């Protein structure tokens, strides 16, 4: 270029056909990937709604399973059993998880805290079937039989790391000034932590708890040899208890059409349970003081 003042002339260097083509190809491939991923999602939900609503009826929601060969019957005891086991799991897991989260955010800036943080992440990655083995060893072997308590304990172990890390994250979002204001008024540390810090972060902590809840609500593997399943009603903590995911599993692999239909209906109910709790989370979170904080 002989020109002493080369003015930038972008149009002079057209993007080659090859580069333009690669650009379009990449966009096309990425869009295809999105469609390929959404396809199974759509298919799963379509089948759930179609087959599920087709087999859902009043008997399904109010009756216990009928013996093989007899038509009718339902999963009422399994639905109730799932709720029951999840209540046990929440009772055991939520206080522990929140407590551990408080420790990490308020006292955990040291070696012990780092170790707990690390183990919580490890626990989060442990396959659920292994949690089942451990709950079997800790509860079932000691009690001598399968039980709702064992199932609840297994799910509680799975809830704890999620709740712990979420609680820590949420408490750390509470501004230092809020805590200092409380200390300045002479409020003791424990009272500040519970009534000021935790209170401020309530909606965030609830979100964490509900996420953990939704995560374990559909778990099947840890219940296989803890809660075990039951064809009848059971409200005793130390007895085998039916659970919705277990019932879906055993019906799905059975050779009977009637049971296959019920498995679809059960799956639909399970998804509805989870979606309702996740929606509750979203509402709780959007109303909270920490809106958009995460």
């Amino acid at each position, binding site marked *: 270029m002989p020109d002493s003042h080369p003015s930038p002339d972008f149009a002079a260097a057209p993007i080659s056909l090859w580069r333009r083509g690669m650009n379009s190809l990449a966009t096309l491939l990425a869009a295809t990937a999105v469609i390929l991923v959404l396809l199974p*999602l759509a298919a799963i939900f379509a089948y759930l709604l179609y087959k599920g609503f087709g087999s859902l009826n009043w008997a399904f929601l109010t009756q216990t399973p009928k013996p093989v060969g007899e038509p009718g019957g339902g999963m009422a005891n399994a639905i109730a059993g799932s709720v029951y086991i999840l209540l046990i799991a929440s009772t055991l897991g939520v206080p522990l998880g929140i407590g551990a989260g408080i420790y990490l955010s308020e006292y955990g800036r040291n070696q012990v805290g780092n170790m707990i943080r690390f183990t919580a992440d490890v626990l989060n990655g442990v396959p659920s079937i292994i949690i089942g083995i451990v709950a079997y*060893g800790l509860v079932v072997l000691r009690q001598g039989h399968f039980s709702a308590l064992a199932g609840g304990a297994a799910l509680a172990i799975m809830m704890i790391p999620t709740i712990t890390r979420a609680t820590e994250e949420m408490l750390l979002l509470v501004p230092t000034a809020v805590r200092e204001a409380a200390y300045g008024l002479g409020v003791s540390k424990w009272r500040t932590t519970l009534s000021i810090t935790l209170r401020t972060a309530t909606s965030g902590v609830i979100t964490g708890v509900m996420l953990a809840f939704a995560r374990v609500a559909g778990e099947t593997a840890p219940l296989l040899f803890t809660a075990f399943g039951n064809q009848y009603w059971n409200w005793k903590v130390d007895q085998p208890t039916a659970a919705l995911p277990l019932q879906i599993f055993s019906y799905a692999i059975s050779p009977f059409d009637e049971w296959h239909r019920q498995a679809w209906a059960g799956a639909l109910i399970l998804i509805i349970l989870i979606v309702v709790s996740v929606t509750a989370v979203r509402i709780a979170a959007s109303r909270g003081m920490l809106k958009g904080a995460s």
Partner: protein
Amino acid sequence: MANRALGAPGLGGPQPLTKPGLAASSQARYQPLLKAGDSRIADRLFFLAILGCGLSVLALVGLIVYELITKSALSWQAFGLKFFFGSEWDPVNNQFGALPFVYGSIVSSILALILAVPLAVGVAVFITEMSPRWLRNPLAFVTELLAAIPSVIYGLWAIFVLVPLLRQYVQPALARYLGWTGLFEGPPYGIGMLAAGIILAIMVVPIISSITREVMTAVPQQQREAVLALGATRWEMIRTGVLRNARAGILGGVILGLGRALGETMAVTMVIGNRPEIAKSLFAPGYTLASVIANEFSEATGDLYLSSLIEVGLALFIVTIIVNMIAQFLVWTVTRGMPARSNA
């Protein structure tokens, strides 16, 4: 981050108001808080209770390790390392070799990754770099929704929709055109390693793509602007400016997906066929570490049988822990310098 400094001495301790300089009215209002008694003891007790909760997390992992090791000792003594190289799984004659399960877990997970990684990275690239702004959040939400579906529902869908589809259309076509590779031969049952790999792929896509999105957003915006200013097309910008910088984190996401695939139990158990055999063809039924535990644990009669199953669990535990730690380290190397997610 700044509020982490709360643990510093001077702030934490009780600060008695010896001379309440507050107006009488407001003092009355704060009375309940001041009357809390000697907060030194209460603070101590509270700290201990909270510490107990924290330590319980450590204790739980300790318990898991302890349970797995002590309860698998019997099988370890009987077979030693041969346990993982023997391919005979015969409960009747008390012969236990876990090789078919190791093989099944590895092959189904690798197959899942081969299918899932290009899709997941494609989805992440599309959502973060290409999609119109209004579509970004809905797409992210919908792909994350895949992660919220319980695995037993994936299994149910796979049994009644995916497997018949494979049996009728996909497997005959694969056998005809790719049968010469030896990977796609034998009778098309539908159920088998291929079905397990596909359902696992669907399940790990959201994990890999959400990590990939996270590390891609961690790449500074200036990086993109710089590459674009040099005259790059959008794809060249993504390739050289974003993917190249995020590759360690993406690898971390892939490995995290591997960990999830290895530990996944129910959906695989429902479609893999559950036969302890090692076959080259992907049409053949197989078995995985997790699914053998799921199927046989509650029916295991005899101490050695149960102990062998727990040793399978121990192996699965160790492998997933190592895999997850590698993954977290890789993701951390990309996101560590990231500012709090305020204006990313």
